[in-house]
């Protein structure tokens, strides 16, 4: 359980985090979204005890971060931005060092390292200096370091940044397969990632919390949510579509020839559109229901704030 109350952080007059308050319960996988410089990393750095807040309170597992920082750090696994690691060590030496600091010894330590190496698939580079590893492997070493003590709270700052699509998929699967009573906080720029792994989204911009709900609710805020897009194999009269009951607006993309019909709030227009297309024998070659466009919602939410 993480509870944050009225968190502020300023650097030399720049307000990086501005009155954040939220609670996170076990089992929640939270995605921090926000433009660059929104205060996501700063918030994470304060949650992990690296930075001290200018004011405000952070309580983790009923302990105050101010008073019991060391006890809290035991419970947290943290992947800092850019996955820093000691480049002159090999992943094995590095993980062994982290395991020792986390209080493991002997066979238990060996087991922990073994398990985490399997989890993030590091065996092939275990004895090469970290400096010589590719970006993807470096990121995985960082993940392994955060996971090694099987922490209750996992805080990952851009865990999939710089990974190829396969590796991204792997990391997402890894996060999904973590036990269900953990708290996971990830920050990312990739909006699909949020729908793929998170069950809660927080959008932060200029240090303020602008949105805090499920990814589904975020989708629903999109103008495109529930809209029907269709494409004709040749030009046809589509004017009547706009007249259909429940259709609020129609938009044509001149380049691709796609028509998008936006429903009135709450209306379900799919069956009306298909019925109409059948009745008028419209030459429809593709038709689908939009799930909402996250990038558009993201812009809408974060740019509204700019005005």
């Amino acid at each position: 359980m993480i509870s944050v109350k009225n968190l502020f952080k300023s650097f030399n007059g720049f307000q990086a985090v501005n009155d954040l308050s939220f609670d996170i319960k076990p089992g929640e996988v939270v995605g921090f979204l926000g433009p660059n410089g929104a205060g996501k990393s700063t918030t994470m750095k304060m949650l992990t005890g690296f930075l001290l807040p200018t004011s405000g309170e952070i309580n983790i597992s009923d302990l105050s971060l101010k008073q019991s920082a060391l006890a809290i750090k035991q419970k947290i696994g943290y992947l800092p931005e850019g996955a820093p690691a000691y480049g002159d060590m090999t992943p094995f030496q590095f993980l062994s060092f982290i395991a020792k600091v986390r209080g493991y010894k002997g066979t238990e330590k060996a087991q922990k390292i073994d398990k985490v190496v399997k989890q993030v698939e590091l065996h092939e580079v275990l004895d090469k200096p970290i400096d010589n590893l590719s970006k993807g492997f470096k990121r995985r070493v960082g993940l392994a370091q955060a996971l090694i003590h099987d922490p209750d709270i996992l805080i990952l700052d851009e865990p999939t940044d710089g990974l190829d699509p396969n590796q991204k998929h792997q990391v997402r699967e890894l996060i999904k397969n973590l036990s269900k009573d953990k708290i996971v906080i990830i920050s990312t720029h990739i909006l699909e990632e949020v729908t793929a792994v998170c069950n809660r989204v927080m959008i932060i911009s200029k240090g303020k919390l602008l949105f805090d709900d499920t990814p589904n609710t975020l989708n629903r805020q999109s103008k495109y949510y529930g809209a029907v897009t269709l494409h004709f194999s040749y030009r046809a009269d589509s004017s009547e579509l706009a007249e259909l009951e429940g259709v609020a607006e129609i938009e044509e993309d001149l380049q691709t020839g796609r028509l998008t019909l936006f429903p009135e709030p709450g209306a379900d227009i799919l069956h009306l559109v298909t019925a109409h297309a059948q009745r008028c024998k419209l030459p429809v070659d593709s038709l689908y229901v939009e799930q909402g466009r996250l990038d558009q919602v993201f812009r809408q939410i974060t740019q509204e704030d700019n005005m």
Partner: protein
Amino acid sequence: MSNISILFRREFSSFFATPVAYVFIGIFLVLSGVFTFFVGGFFERGQADLLPFFNFHPWLYLFLVPAIAMRSWSEERKSGTIELLMTLPISTWQAMLAKHLAAWAVLGLSLLLTFPLWLTVNYLGDPDNGIIVAAYIGSWFMAGAFLSVGICMSALTKNQVIAFILSIVVCFVFVVSGSNIVLDAFKGWAPNEVIDLVASFSFLTHFEAMAKGVIAMNDVMYFLIVTICWLFAGLVLIEQKKAD
């Protein structure tokens, strides 16, 4: 306590994972040989002691110790590993102490590896080995004081070159405040107490007796206190500057 030893081992082995320790030890040995035999006139003096060797230590440390200390915090901050280190369940003072002890151990090892000089002097004559051991210990404590200045300067900046230059300057002040160049400038107008005060801040003044084999409590305490003060200053600095 166990945290310190884990961190110490990481720091110590990182000196040897990169060429830093080898280059440092190699240059230290070559330079101390050059100073002892060519500049110090080891043979010409015709005396069975290592005074020409120890007398040059302050000047040798002046350039070499900042070189080994400059990376300690600067590199952590530059590469971002400081964020990793500070979010592990360890205290900052433990990390500070471990860094100091690890680099100090490398310095101790370099000193130990000068043993051929000790063999030489024992082969050529009949020196007082007690004096030599005392001088070695004194030299190691002085190296610790130089090191703490370097580590503090390294905590001050992300840039290793700046850390290096700043620590040379600060160490230089500590060394020359006891030399005649500075003291002569005070003589003639300043009261003796002031001259003594200035001289008492100097590494040279406190090392002089030790190089001759006299381990006085106040000299050892002086180097220990200087070390602790600079490490504490470094601790305050790193707590404030870690996120910059």
